[in-house]
């Protein structure tokens, strides 16, 4: 039973389509991310659902009820904005109570609900502060509390963590997931940060140029990208082109690799295959091992990022910092990977 349904939702500006016939169904309690580069139409989609942008065509329904005919103020959705958009002239408690005031909730109940939601987001004792007196992370929590307190049918998050520094962002990701689970609220998040989308969502919807490229669970989308764009956008990717198939072996440059079962229907001349950098290891020379020279080696704490020159062009390799081999820049190495780690790219 779908909760929020977008049916061929479209927004055109002059003759370019910012959002091109997007259809999407979200189940109650689900956390879905719209992921894509800037200009892919994800924010426009969110704004059409929130009622800030008038769609050119299509429909949006919430529990079967048409949403597009309802003015933004009457949609009863919770929206968290990229820059939080707190009311600077109101205290934290007044900010959070704003939606309750608009709904004419009695004073005593309003106070109780504000207290409860501030406890939920971890802002006990901050009710009397003004937004300028708070850190970015705290403002983010206020914005979330303000959206949640009205018990919206749907929570819309517009790049909610993009203004936070890296450490705080990770913390808030965990917080956001905890709060979403605790309230069970259906959530649609817009983000350009693939790590954020993979970490938080039940489902990732990758968008490009106003269209949906893939709609899948995070691990599924990462392991089995539906297009070249998705495999490049979600994580890092090495793409190789199959030059020909002969005797159940694929020719990729100098390599002759036995066609794995998963690629049986895909392997033919001109097909592209994906190998994730963390799936490639350094090994001894061999027929299906790729000779390479280390071009650069970057230490990133828990892993090393290698750029290598190979007969197939540049290849990225990520190795855990686990005490294994770590060849120097300029060193000649051999790369190997398991055949089943190769993915077909449509």
């Amino acid at each position, binding site marked *: 039973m779908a909760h929020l349904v977008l049916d061929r939702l479209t927004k055109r500006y002059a003759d370019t389509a910012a959002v091109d016939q997007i259809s999407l169904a979200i189940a109650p309690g689900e956390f879905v991310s719209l992921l894509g580069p800037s200009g892919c139409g994800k924010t426009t989609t969110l704004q059409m659902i*929130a*009622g*800030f942008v008038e769609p050119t065509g299509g429909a949006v329904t919430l529990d079967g009820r048409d949403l597009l005919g309802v003015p*933004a*103020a*009457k*949609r*009863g*959705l*919770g*929206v968290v*904005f*990229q*820059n939080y*958009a*707190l*009311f*600077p*002239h109101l205290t934290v408690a007044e900010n959070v109570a*704003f*939606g309750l*005031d*608009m*709904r004419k909730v009695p004073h005593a109940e309003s106070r109780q609900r504000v207290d409860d939601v501030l406890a939920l987001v971890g802002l006990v004792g901050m009710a009397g502060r*003004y937004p*300028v*007196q708070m850190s970015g992370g705290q403002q983010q929590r206020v914005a979330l509390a*303000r*959206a949640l307190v*009205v018990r919206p049918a749907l929570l819309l998050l517009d790049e909610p963590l993009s203004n936070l520094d890296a450490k705080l962002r990770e913390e808030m990701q965990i917080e956001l997931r905890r709060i979403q689970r605790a309230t069970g609220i259906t959530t649609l998040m817009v983000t350009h940060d693939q790590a954020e989308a993979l970490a938080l969502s039940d489902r990732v919807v990758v968008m490009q140029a106003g269209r949906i490229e893939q709609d899948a669970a995070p691990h599924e989308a990462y392991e089995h990208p539906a297009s070249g764009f998705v495999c490049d956008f979600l994580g890092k990717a090495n793409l190789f082109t199959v030059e020909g198939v002969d005797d159940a072996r694929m020719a990729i440059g100098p390599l002759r690799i036995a066609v794995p079962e998963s690629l049986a229907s895909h392997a033919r001349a001109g097909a592209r295959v994906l190998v994730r950098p963390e799936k490639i290891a350094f090994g001894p020379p061999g027929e299906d091992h790729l000779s390479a020279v280390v071009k650069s080696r970057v230490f990133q704490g828990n892993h090393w990022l290698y750029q290598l020159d190979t007969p197939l062009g540049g290849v990225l390799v990520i190795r855990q910092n686990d005490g294994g081999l770590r060849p120097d820049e300029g060193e000649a190495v051999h790369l190997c990977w398991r055949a089943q780690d190769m993915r077909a790219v449509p």
Partner: protein
Amino acid sequence: MRSRRLAPYWLSAPALLVYAAFLVVPMGAIALISFQHFEFYGGIQPGFTLKNYAEVFGDGYYWEIFGRTFWIALVVTAACAILGTFEAIVLNRMENPWKGLFLMIVLGPLLISVVVRTLGWALLFGSTGLVNKGLALLGIDPVQFMYANIGVIVALTHVLVPFVVISVWASLQRIDPAVERAAVSLGAGRAAVLRRVIVPLAMPGILSGSVIVFALAASAFATPAIIGGRRLKVIATAAYDEFLNTLNWPLGASLAVLLLIVNIVVLQASNRMMERRYKAVFNEGGT
């Protein structure tokens, strides 16, 4: 090294010199004159006396003038604050070609000579003027605008409203459009967004514009002189008459000094109030 350190002083010297020569010195002279004695046949006499101030404070005639001046200034300030705020909000929402055009129209009164503009109002206000003819068409009895408070108030509001518009406009520019959307998403209709979000956030602009309007309205000369005439005196026209008609410079000077003091007090008090009220909310006046 030394010349480097002195450079700011050299650079600001011309402005300071002009300021001293054309503002501080004449003001000082006025203040001095206000403490001197006036002889009808002998003119200004040297010496120190508080007689002029005693005369102003002791005479109901001057109390009436002061009362009228600040009453007019208050009404004009209130009218400008209300009209100017709404003008700025409407202007801020207009699309671009219209925005520029209407901003020009709002600022227009400042581009016209005060005398020309006021005489224009005098033409409109006359008993057979356009305004009263219009009222007659609507079946309303003619209103006495000329030589009456109402005429002065309308004409002053017209010319001073741009000061509120400009300062409210600046406040509105600083409001994040997402804040308005946030209010809408929380269920606020147009009126609630205006009342609970836009106007409170524009309040520093409304107040600072109002202070300017009050100071200018209280010390206005040309408009009360032409519309109000000789009968309806305000402090500025009363001081002018003392200086140029009665030639009693010391009395005129004491009126001018008192007007200045009241203006400074009002300005300071409202600045203090604004700082106290908004310092916690707006970081250094901007967000």
